[in-house]
């Protein structure tokens, strides 16, 4: 089913902030097979010039869709989640993510288009700290396979 183009331009704010913790950073680093001590050991991270362990570059995928999940499951959008695969992902960092960061994610649907038999939906998410500082920006494109058929 074609996605509802009326959703382009809509913005969604996560209902709660995401609080980053050391345990989650370690779990995520383990999952990508990364044993770099700056992800696992505060002392090693401090020795490398960080205030604490630091999150791997792709870590914001854990929370960056939290604002948009409600929109993506809205029946009016018409997204068949069973046919969804990840199409593209980019991250732009203002600074690394650290434990104790309380991050708010605001997502905007920037584009919905079809290519061949597939529908493509792109979200831009601004990840900000509690002081309003932009920490990183993520761009996420999901593909609904066969959605445009």
């Amino acid at each position, binding site marked *: 089913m074609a996605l509802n183009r009326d959703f382009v331009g809509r913005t969604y704010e996560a209902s709660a902030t995401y609080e980053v913790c050391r345990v989650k950073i370690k779990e995520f680093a383990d*999952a990508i097979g990364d044993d770099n001590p700056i992800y696992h050991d505060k002392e090693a991270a401090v020795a490398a010039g960080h205030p604490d362990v630091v999150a*791997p570059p*792709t870590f914001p995928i*854990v929370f960056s869709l939290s604002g948009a999940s409600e929109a993506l499951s809205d029946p009016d959008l018409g997204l068949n989640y*069973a046919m969804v695969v990840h*199409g*593209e992902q980019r991250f732009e960092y203002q600074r*690394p993510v650290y434990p104790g960061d309380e991050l708010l994610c605001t997502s905007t649907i920037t584009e919905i288009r079809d290519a061949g038999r597939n529908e493509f939906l792109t979200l831009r998410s601004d990840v900000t700290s509690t002081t309003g500082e932009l920490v990183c920006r993520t761009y996420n494109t999901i593909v609904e*396979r066969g959605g445009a058929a």
Partner: protein
Amino acid sequence: MAEPRYEEVAVGTRLPRLTHVLRRGDLVIYAGASGDFNPIHWSERAAAQAGLPTVIAHGMLTLGVALRAVTEWAGREAVLECGARFAAAVPVPDTDEGVEIVADGIVAEKLGEGRVRVDLTVRCAGEKVLARPRAMVRLS
């Protein structure tokens, strides 16, 4: 290993190759760590219903693994931007051997102010699985 310095790298400088084996269990671990529980990454039945040959790796798992080639070369804090398009699925059979991800990086452009663009080539079973996998990093 000492981190590379901007003056010492040139367009064409190669990063050390990274290889990493993925097995079914790794997809379950990544699902838990990332919160992406899409069943095409762990259920043979769900994968078949989505028209896939078998369970596939999360694109972000492949990208997360591949970017280690960059962070091991330049350091985590060096990464200013990164991303990729998920061009081909990475099928992960339910075997002891699993599948091997191979990531090769090359300095593609020097952008000034210590910044360089690294282009990766990420293969699985000889096939490129990511399109335009890149990172912009700041070197000292």
